């Protein structure tokens, strides 16, 4: 009897570890999902304002990026690809960057963004719960965060984004 209980408990612990450690989706869900966008009040690259009023008209994507971020270079082409497949607005939030470097970067790689907000201090990043760039948020017409992508937007993520956008348009 003693051994049976021991075997059952050990088996239970191993089963828990097996399923826990094999979990494919290791990304943490943002607590901001299905909530209104957090505070944002930035000056854009063209000296315009980027604030909450810019977020309540249409479905759009917010992409946190920087010229010093290597994965952002990989992602950049996919942002153009996304716009080609679905012409949605993409707002870029330039995270803790140097403006001169940013301008050179955009000139070299092109500019997929409708507006670029400058987050020099990183406070907007913290407000949006950003861990590390690139990170992107899909926002619906009412300014609600519907999806978050931690890391690079790639082909797979584009497919997910297109499905999400389609369901939001219904």
């Amino acid at each position, binding site marked *: 009897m*003693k051994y049976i*209980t*021991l075997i059952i*408990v050990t088996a239970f612990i191993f089963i828990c570890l097996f399923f826990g450690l094999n979990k494919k989706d290791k990304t*943490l*869900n*943002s*607590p*901001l999902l299905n909530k209104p966008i*957090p505070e944002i009040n930035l000056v854009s690259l063209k000296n315009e304002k980027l604030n909450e009023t810019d977020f309540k008209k249409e479905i759009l994507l917010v992409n946190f990026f920087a010229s010093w971020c290597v994965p952002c270079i990989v992602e950049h082409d996919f942002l153009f690809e996304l716009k080609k497949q679905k012409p949605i607005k993409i707002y870029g939030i330039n995270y*803790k960057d140097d403006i001169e470097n940013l301008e050179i970067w955009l000139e070299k790689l092109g500019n997929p963004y409708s507006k670029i907000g400058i987050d020099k*201090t*990183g*406070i907007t*990043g*913290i*407000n*949006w*719960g950003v*861990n*590390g760039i690139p990170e992107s948020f899909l926002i619906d017409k009412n300014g609600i965060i519907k999806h978050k992508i931690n890391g690079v937007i790639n082909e797979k993520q584009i497919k997910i984004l297109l499905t999400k956008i389609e369901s939001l348009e219904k």
Partner: protein
Amino acid sequence: MKKFLILIIIIFFSQNIFADENLEKKAREINKKIRCVVCQSQSIDDSDSILARDLRKLIKQKLEEGQSEKEITNYLVERYGEFILLKPKFNPNTYILWLTPIIIILFGIFLIKGIFRKN
């Protein structure tokens, strides 16, 4: 008169220094409880990552604005989830985490008791 003025100036500045020291101490206390989300099991007090530095700055700023520790941790949990707390709260999501060690200890005690009784 001169001595009196000097005394007032000293009192005024020492008060400011003590207030700054208290605020710094409080900020460090909070920093030690906040996880550096981009590091491996480190608090933002121990980490030198960019995000940890920004969070330390923000916490100090919020304390200066007069916010309480609870208000500051709530602000961070709303954005990063409870994962940002090094010591997770006791709630339905963390029952297993908090209760498993107790269950295992109890099970061990009963097991040892059983073995001794048999012997």
